[in-house]
């Protein structure tokens, strides 16, 4: 691990500690309004001031960090899980099933990612409770974000399909399910981890884009994307530069994930 990777991992660890301890560190609940001090500047009571509705900005930032990061992690986990199962089975079995999986992957990759998300989001009701909007965003990204990973995993599974150890396992009467779980999956584990890590920054950015467009996490639940919706009014932003903290935090976290990624040889 290089020194730069160590720094990135340390920063990410600090962010995770912050997420876990957010409940204890919060000066107020993220939805609580201080109606007499809307758009207030930083003070000892509100270190990052308050927003236009008088809500504590630090509380919203910490909760937003928790929502965005956990949402991206969960979606990456689901997408990697789907890609691992589909890719491994397709690579191991080969034949028509592999062709079918790869054709479906090609088909969905023909669409730009955001267009695909918009189509699916348009199918579902828009006026939903905030918690449900988080679940919808997680399911959309998790269920639709596996295509790139499945190609990589399928290629890797195909490369070990005819290896000696699988031949030996097959000749000793090993069933396909056991082959997959005991022999193929352990060999592909580094690849699964790499694909999981690669997906996280992608999903963080996707959530931010969707929420800024009003199709992601719904108010009053904060997320990085939600908090950045206020950037449209640049006059407020130039008067309150600390409102840029969600963007700064997002850039730092995404950069750290990019730096902490495993080497390209493993990722490919």
């Amino acid at each position, binding site marked *: 691990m290089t020194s730069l990777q160590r720094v990135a991992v340390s920063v990410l660890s600090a962010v995770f500690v912050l997420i876990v301890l957010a409940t204890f560190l919060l000066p107020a609940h993220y939805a609580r309004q201080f109606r007499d001090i809307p758009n207030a500047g930083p003070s000892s009571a509100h270190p990052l001031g308050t927003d236009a509705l008088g809500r504590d900005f630090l509380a919203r930032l910490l909760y937003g960090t928790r929502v965005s990061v956990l949402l991206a992690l969960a979606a990456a986990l689901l997408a990697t899980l789907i890609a691992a199962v589909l890719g491994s089975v397709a690579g191991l079995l080969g034949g028509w099933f592999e062709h079918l999986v790869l054709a479906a992957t090609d*088909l969905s990759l023909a669409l730009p990612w955001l*267009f695909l998300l*918009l189509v699916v989001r348009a199918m579902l009701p828009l006026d939903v409770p905030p918690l449900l909007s988080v679940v919808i965003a997680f399911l959309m990204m998790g269920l639709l974000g596996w295509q790139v990973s499945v190609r990589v995993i399928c290629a890797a599974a195909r490369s070990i399909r005819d290896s000696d150890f699988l031949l030996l396992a097959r000749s000793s009467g090993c069933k396909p399910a056991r082959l997959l779980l005991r022999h193929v999956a352990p060999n592909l584990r580094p690849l699964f981890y790499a694909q999981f890590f690669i997906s996280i920054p992608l999903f963080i950015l996707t959530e931010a884009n969707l929420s800024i467009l009003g199709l992601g996490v719904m108010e009053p639940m904060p997320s990085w994307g939600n908090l950045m919706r206020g*950037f449209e009014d640049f006059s407020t932003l130039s008067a309150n530069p600390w409102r840029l903290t969600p963007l700064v935090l997002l850039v730092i976290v995404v950069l750290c994930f990019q730096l902490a990624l495993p080497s390209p040889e493993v990722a490919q």
Partner: protein
Amino acid sequence: MIETKKSTNLFRLVLRRMLFLVCLSVVGALAGATLVRFAPGYGVTERDLDPRWSANSLEALRQKQALHQSLPSFYFHYLSALVHGDLGESDSLKRPVRELLRQRFPVTGSSVLRGLGVAWLAAALLASFGLVIRVWFFEASATAFNSFLLSLPSAVVAMLAVHLRAPVFFAIAVVVFPRLYSYIRNLLVQAYDQPHVLAARARGLGSSTIFFRHVLPLAASPLLALLGVSFAISFGAAIPIEALCDSPGLGQLAWHAALSRDLPLIVNVTLIVALVMLAANSLADFAGRTLAGSTS
């Protein structure tokens, strides 16, 4: 003999791609029809909630509009209308989808093409310049700047473009540039590390000669493939950028359709974008293979 075999392979590739395009159109149209037919609230209008209409009148109207037609019949009517160029009517804008697409497509097409042009030019120049001068400080700064741009959501780039009064194509270029730069740079580095380039350098050939005669031909085929991929990236980036920059293109139309749950509109916009993407990818792939065949 070898030439004939190459031509046959290319012909097969073109046929396969054409077949894939046709399959995609059919599958996409059927998937779109399914989305429209089974979406929650399909066929429900404000009129259904109006107490002035009696149940009998509503039932008669529904039957007239064939809302209760069987599923195969629904698919058949949808596909036959599609074949005749009828993409339906937008629920929210109350205008034919075909007319909306005809108006919006040139706007997005122009922004995407100009954005891609700027991004490709900047990425290719920066990557080539870095490779020719080989100064670590330049490389480190360019990589850091590139990583920073990669970490910015495209919606934030769009808001920045609004603030700076920058054109839409510039925002698209900013989103596409970092993805192109890292890939182009890696391709050129790989090509520069080839033994024949080292031999050319040892023979005292100039930097520009080495670049244009030995490096570029080697990297040209994957670069053409990248051109197809960059189309998909820029069309994806066009959604938040056009929506936030208030540019009347396909991206804004798709965003509007998603916000108003206008399924006929968004499904058809997506189908058209998918076909354009696939055609661009196929062309790039075909050009890359032809070029690889002619240089080998």
